[in-house]
């Protein structure tokens, strides 16, 4: 059940996308998001879709995993789409009943929005699918390092983030185990009525909190034993290096972005 969560999951591999410098990947993902939100016509989204498809193909990650990442958000997407369809006004009227109206504007806006968000999720999943959490936080730390000048504790924030990310799978596993253990004692977790389920949440949350605190304590001790004392003067095992392929990837993305902007202008005029 909990094992099926794919957000933040990483699939190790050696594809072109995997090997890109994580700093560039983050910047490229930002440009990609900008691109999706600047585009205001279906043609722009088509350009975005081509870009996404190419990146997915290059990453060698099965397309099924991207479907899985979008799935949990589908109900929300459909709900907003339905609301948009019924209540947006404008264009030709296809159907009318009392205050409910389906118009061409409503349909196109909701289709547009669904595609945009699916692309958005697929693109950002690609970032986490191909970049290990540790490299990702490394890259974030490097990208944010100029903020150190204004006394932002960048290293500490990045360390907190990597610890948090590192412990997501552990906590999921732990939760799974506690759920099983309480189920073995007859707790109703995925059956039974609402009240007994709510009560049984306590049986899961209390041990989970207790063990999280225990883990945090142990980790802090272990870090202190190895003389960890923050980021000052700390060197790294893996130095991030940018190579020509990173610049090429960035250039390609910028070209796509330029395309989208051009298409926008063409359509306006």
């Amino acid at each position, binding site marked *: 059940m909990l*094992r099926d969560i794919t957000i933040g999951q990483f*699939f190790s591999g050696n594809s072109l996308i995997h090997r890109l410098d994580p700093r560039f990947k983050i910047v490229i993902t930002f440009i990609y998001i900008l691109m999706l939100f600047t585009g205001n016509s279906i043609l722009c989204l088509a350009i975005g879709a081509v870009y996404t498809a190419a990146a997915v193909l290059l990453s060698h990650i*099965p397309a*099924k*995993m991207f479907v899985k990442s979008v799935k949990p958000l589908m109900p929300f997407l459909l709900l907003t789409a339905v609301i948009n369809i019924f209540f947006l006004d404008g264009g030709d009227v296809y159907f009318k009943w009392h205050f409910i109206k389906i118009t061409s504007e409503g349909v196109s806006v909701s289709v547009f929005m669904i595609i945009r968000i699916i692309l958005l999720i697929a693109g950002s999943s690609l970032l986490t699918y191909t970049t290990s959490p540790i490299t990702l936080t490394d890259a974030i730390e490097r990208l944010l390092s100029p903020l150190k000048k204004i006394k932002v504790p960048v290293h500490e924030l990045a360390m907190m983030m990597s610890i948090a990310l590192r412990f997501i799978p552990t906590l999921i596993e732990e939760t799974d*185990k*506690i759920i*099983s*253990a*309480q*189920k*073995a*004692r*007859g*707790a*109703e977790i995925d*059956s039974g009525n609402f009240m007994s389920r709510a009560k049984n949440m*306590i*049986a*899961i949350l*209390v*041990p989970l909190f*207790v*063990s999280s605190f225990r883990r945090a304590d142990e980790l802090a001790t272990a870090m202190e034993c190895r003389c960890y004392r923050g980021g000052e003067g700390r060197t790294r095992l893996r130095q991030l290096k940018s190579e020509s392929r990173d610049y090429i990837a960035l250039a390609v993305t910028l070209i796509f972005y330029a395309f989208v902007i051009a298409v926008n202008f063409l359509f306006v005029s």
Partner: protein
Amino acid sequence: MAVLETQELTYVYSQGSPFEKTAVDSVSLKIDEGAIIGVMGHTGSGKSTLIQQFNGLLRPTSGKILLDGVDIWADRKKIRDVRFRVGLVFQYPEYQIFEETVYKDIAFGPKNMGLDSAEIKRRVLETSHDIGIQEELLERSPFELSGGQKRRVAIAGVMAMNPEILILDEPTAGLDPAGRDKIIGFIKEYHRKKGNTVLIVSHSMEDIAGFADKILVMNKSKLFCYDDTEKVFSRAEEISRIGLDIPQVTKIFIELKKNGIDFGKDVYTLDYAEKLLVKKFGERSRKNC
């Protein structure tokens, strides 16, 4: 009579994803009523997955589990009753304790069974006595107890459901030798008193050699062997080859055999070794020791 039977039991994790893994591969076995069975296997051999199917926590990908001859998945709604009949104590069970008092935590299982409060009280008092938790501890917070006591409280929580089959996943993991002997002693005593079926998972033979009637060995998702304790130990060398620990005394006797001193029997407990040695070298050798 077989109280629990599995037929071609197979379990596959994350079927259809890149992480697909067969954890249990067509295991068929019968467990006799009232027996103590040792379940052995390396980490990742599939023993935990196997036992979690016995009480219906995991639903087999294919194959059947029969409890008293009835398929436990025949009626999905009754799976909770199966969990009361097949009690499972997880590894490090103290981490699942959550109630404010020891009493309430032990009572959690019986309460879920829908018993009345008098019966719950009777069971909590009985099991806590059986597993050596003094009555004055019952009103304390379980989080104040020592590690060994917490472990016993957690085991009591499952025992109090009075299951026909009690499964314990490495009940002695992480305990010191004294705590280990204590827990094993309580489990033995419990079995003697109730006469129910007990399965103990362990990866050291030393722990279970002395009292298991039968031993089940899992290796690489498959049933490696399942037989009477003596017969399994006669294959000690094979078992140590798949990476499992065999008792030290067995190792000594295997070496002795290699060096030409054959006792003609396999030895896996100290008491038995002493008897054999005395028989071979006479009473005098004991005095000389």
